[in-house]
C-alpha cells in the first residue's frame, strides 16, 4: 500500500472504521491519517453516516403481530407435512404395486422349481397330480411340457 496515495487509501477507510482491516494495513493507515487532513475528513463523514444510521431506531412489531405470523407459519407447516405424508404413502403404494407386478412377472417367466409339484403338474415319479386351478397356480401343464 502506497501510504501517500489518497485514491488508493480511501477505499480502505470504511474497513478501518469497521475494524475489519488487517493489523499491518491499519498501522500504515494510522501513519497516513496522522499526516492527511483530506482522508481524516472522509473518515469523519463515514463515521457520521454510521452515527445517523444507528440513531434511526427500527420499529419492533408487537407480540400479537409476531404471534399471528407464527400461527400462519405453523398452519403452512402442517399443510406441507400433510402433503409430504400423502406423497410418501403414494410412493410406498406405487413401490409395493411395482414389486408385486415384478414378482408376478418373474413367476410367469421363470417358474420356481417347486411350482411344478402343484396339482395338475408332473410328479417326480412321472405321474400327474390331480388337476387343480391352473390359472391361480400360474403354471399350466402345457407350460411345463414346453420345457
Amino acid at each position, binding site marked *: 500500500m502506497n501510504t501517500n496515495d489518497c485514491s488508493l487509501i480511501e*477505499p*480502505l477507510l470504511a*474497513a478501518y472504521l*469497521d475494524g475489519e482491516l*488487517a493489523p499491518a494495513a491499519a498501522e500504515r493507515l494510522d501513519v497516513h491519517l496522522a499526516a492527511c487532513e483530506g482522508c481524516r475528513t472522509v473518515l469523519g463523514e463515514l463515521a457520521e453516516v454510521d452515527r445517523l444510521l444507528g440513531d434511526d*431506531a427500527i420499529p419492533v*412489531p408487537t407480540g400479537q403481530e409476531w404471534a399471528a405470523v*407464527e400461527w400462519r*407459519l405453523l398452519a403452512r407447516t402442517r399443510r406441507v407435512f400433510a402433503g409430504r405424508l400423502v406423497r410418501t404413502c403414494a410412493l410406498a403404494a406405487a413401490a409395493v404395486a411395482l414389486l408385486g407386478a415384478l414378482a408376478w412377472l418373474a413367476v410367469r417367466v421363470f417358474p420356481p422349481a417347486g411350482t411344478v409339484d402343484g396339482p395338475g403338474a408332473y410328479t417326480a415319479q412321472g405321474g400327474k397330480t390331480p388337476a387343480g386351478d391352473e390359472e391361480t397356480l400360474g403354471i399350466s401343464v402345457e407350460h411345463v411340457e414346453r420345457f
Partner: protein
Amino acid sequence: MNSELDRNVQTDGAATGADAFLRDREDERLVLQFLAGRREAVGDLFRRHRDGVFRIAYRFTGNRDDALEITQDVFMKLIEHLGGFRQGSRFSTWLYRVSVNQTLDFLRRRARLAAAPLSAPPARAAAGAADPARSAERAELRERLKAALGKLSEKHRTAVVLHGVEQLSYKEIAEITGVSTGTVMSRLFYARKRLAELLGDR
C-alpha cells in the same frame, strides 16, 4: 483492485466466536429436527431470527407493514425449501441471503425500488418518544435516511443494510452476497461516501 483490497481485510470474521458457534449449532439442530418431522422447530427458528429478518426488510423498504409481510414470506419460503439447506453451512447466512432476495423481489414486484422510502406511510412512533421536538427530529432523520438509501444501487444498499443493521462481518456479507471481502469493503466505502453526499444535501 479488489484482490488488492482482499489482502488488507482481516481473514477471520467478527462473528466466529464461541457464541456464534453455539448459535449456529443450535440452528443446525433445529433444522435437523424440522427435517425429521418436528413441526414446532419452525416456530423456534422463527423466534430466533424474526427480528434480524424484519430489520433487514425494514431498512430496505422503510415501511413497517411491508417489512412484516416480507418477514412472513421469508419464513414461508424457509418451510418450503429447508430441505435444500446444505448441512455444514451457516443457517443465518442462508436465511439472510433469502431475506435480501425476497426483499429485493418484493420491491421490484411493486416497482417502487426508488420511490418506496419516500412514499411509505410514516412508521409508528417508537416507544419512549415522548418529547415532540425529539420525535420530530427523529422523523426527519428517518425520512432523510430513507430517501438517501433509496438512491443507492441494490448492491450498495444490500451491503449497508447487512453491515449497518445486523452488524455482520465483511466475511459474512461476502458469503451472503457471493462476492469477495474486498468487494464488500469497496461497496461499503462507496455506499457510505454516497450516503454522506446525499445526507449532506439539504
